[in-house]
């Protein structure tokens, strides 16, 4: 009985030591966030990388073409940070779009990060649809980053 228990405990501790998670490179996560799909590509998941890149880019471009507005932080509106976080998930697409709309001077104005223009045209028919596509793209990329983390850690294949 005692021998069995000891064997079981030994096997459990052996199993636990085998399943120790791998350390995840922060650079990999940063790259995965900045360029949609690149994290999976670097991990050798080429098909998934292409699909994720295509889907996220497709959603982002649709949002821009529909005159959707990117969420930006606004003063006295804590909830705007929540929306901005979702959009910042777009990575470099978000940064390029903000740069396109505001210019370098606008981005690094005195009131940064407040006072940024998220673009879009509120009068356009597709304004809210566009926002939905832009938010969806950002949130999908955040999930992609989490997926890269799980794969790199060895929790998922």
């Amino acid at each position: 009985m005692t021998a069995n228990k000891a064997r079981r405990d030994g096997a459990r501790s052996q199993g636990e030591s085998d399943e120790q998670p791998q350390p995840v490179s922060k650079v990999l996560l940063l790259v995965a966030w900045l360029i949609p799909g690149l994290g999976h590509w670097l991990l050798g998941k080429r098909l998934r990388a292409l699909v994720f890149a295509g889907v996220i880019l497709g959603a982002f471009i649709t949002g821009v073409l529909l005159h959707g507005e990117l969420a930006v932080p606004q003063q006295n509106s804590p909830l705007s940070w929540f929306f901005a976080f979702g959009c910042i998930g777009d990575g470099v697409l978000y940064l390029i779009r903000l740069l396109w709309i505001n210019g370098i001077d606008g981005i690094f104005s005195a009131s940064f990060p407040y006072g940024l223009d998220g673009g879009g045209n509120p009068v356009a028919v597709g304004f809210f649809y566009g926002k939905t596509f832009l938010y969806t793209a950002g949130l999908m990329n955040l999930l992609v980053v989490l997926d890269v983390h799980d794969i790199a850690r060895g929790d998922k294949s």
Partner: protein
Amino acid sequence: MDHFLLLVWHALLVATFFAFLWRSDARGRKFLFLKTFLIMVVGAIVLGWLMFPFP
């Protein structure tokens, strides 16, 4: 601008995304894609009809 086409396009993108995120085999991906896509499109139409009586 066709609102229904935008709905279908959005459902297509999201269904493809989750099919590749959550499934690793081709059969599982196809099944999840179809399930998610149909739930989003048909669900939106049904919800739209259900909202008719409300102002």
